[in-house]
């Protein structure tokens, strides 16, 4: 299933946050959105998943979601959004209960996603007992449990320290390599973008417009540290963003 954004514009009151965004998120690819803070990239993600309504333009699903898909558009949030009163197992079963998947069937799905995110030993743990990286892996496992057509990842690694971030990036690459998934991945971290993105969409500062779309054709698993071409791409992205970021930083909020 592909996602197409058709001339999306969005404003909060008088503040225009996004202007005329059109692009495709192709099946099986990870599309990264980068841009200075306040450029509306998280808003764009909320629009794609239907948590907010765009002021103008349409968001289309092309084709039908894969078989067994319970929740075609599934988020992974920056702050994990785990229920603190439910165990790891309970947090995942939460999203299955409403689909009438209970008992052995649910246990099988949960065991599978926990194995894929290397959490099998922690199914009874409560969120407060887990480190940040583990919490985000639980959130990823929860997203996988509903067999999404498209994963909408809103700065999923931004709340984590840099070592954990590296490890989780490896995990995401491994997950994608085993079974490719479609994702819209919002980040402000360019290293993440060049590591995980098949396509990188650079947004300008507010109101966010597409400045450039960069394609990276190196397969995810072959992207290594210090790869000259990736470094070059990252530098190119940064050159593009530097002035935007500086200008965005000097803007007053709520003007």
């Amino acid at each position: 299933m592909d996602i197409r954004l058709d001339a999306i514009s969005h404003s909060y009151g008088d503040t225009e946050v996004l202007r005329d965004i059109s692009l495709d998120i192709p099946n099986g690819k990870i599309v990264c959105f980068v841009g200075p803070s306040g450029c509306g990239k998280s808003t764009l993600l909320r629009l794609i998943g239907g948590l907010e309504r765009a002021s103008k333009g349409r968001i289309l699903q092309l084709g039908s979601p894969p078989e067994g898909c319970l929740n075609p558009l599934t988020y992974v949030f920056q702050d994990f959004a785990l229920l603190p009163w439910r165990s790891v197992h309970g947090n995942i079963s939460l999203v299955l209960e409403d689909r009438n998947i209970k008992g052995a069937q649910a246990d099988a799905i949960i065991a599978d996603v926990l194995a894929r995110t290397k959490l099998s030993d922690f199914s009874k743990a409560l969120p407060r007992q887990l480190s940040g990286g583990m919490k985000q892996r639980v959130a990823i496992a929860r997203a996988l449990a509903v067999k999404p057509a498209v994963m909408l990842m809103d700065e999923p690694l931004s709340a984590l320290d840099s070592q954990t971030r590296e490890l989780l990036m490896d995990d995401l690459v491994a997950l994608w390599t085993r079974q490719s998934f479609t994702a819209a991945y919002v980040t402000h971290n360019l290293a993440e973008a060049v590591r995980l993105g098949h396509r990188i969409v650079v947004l300008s500062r507010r109101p966010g417009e597409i400045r450039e779309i960069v394609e990276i054709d190196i397969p995810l698993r072959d992207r290594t540290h210090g790869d000259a071409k990736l470094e070059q791409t990252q530098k190119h992205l940064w050159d593009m963003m530097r002035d935007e970021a500086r200008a965005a930083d000097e803007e007053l909020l709520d003007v």
Partner: protein
Amino acid sequence: MSDTGAKNQPIEVRFRGGGFAPKARRSVGLAVFIFLIGIAEIGTRQGWISSLTLPKPSDVLATFGELWESGLLFKHLIPSLSRLAVGAAIGASIGIAVGIMIGLFSYVRAGMVPLVAAIFPIPKIALLPLFVIWFGIDEASKYALIAFGTFTPTVVATYGAVDNVDRSLIRMGQSFGLSWLSIVRKIVLPGAMPGILSGLRISLAIAIILLVAAEMLGAEYGIGAYILEAGSLYDLERLFAGVVILSLLGVILSTLIGFIEGRLLSWRA
């Protein structure tokens, strides 16, 4: 620079952290009680507290013993407890329901919040005559008074607690396509539970106060009636025995809520 030699002495960094983290010290509360009662006992025995000021704690205990042996204790306690249980249960459950509605629906909020604010400061005891007219002199008017008194603080605590539920968790529920009812049952309610329970502590203490007030105005049996009778006879021992029962009731209810918190909120730790 020999005169600055002393200044170059290393100074140990002064510790200035710590504190602001109360820990459970179970025995201290008991020690305070024992200390105060001990002072009263010694004072009344030695005479520097006159028996008109304060009854001898041991006499109060003896009165309590008589109350127990004569069976009067349960004759007073059981109607009181049932009034408290029925009234508080009605008030708290309606209060929690209304509080959740206020937390969830804009129109209910707009309509009910001013109403609750208007009802809250009314001394509910002042309304007892009204309740007697509405519900009769029997138990129903006492239930109504206690229910009404527990209702308002429960509502305020509950909608505050619902307001404080992490919105990102609710967005998460929506993004996974959970039904409205599931979001309320599995996200809003458990998220509001800490606030609801701490509100219940206050509501139940108010319920005890209103119980006594209701029983003072027209009840044959009940702790309130017992205290009123003792008070009008200036029988301080019996008065204090009654007051001690109320205090114990408060402590027991508070412990009970603490126990429920321990069970329901173990995820907080």
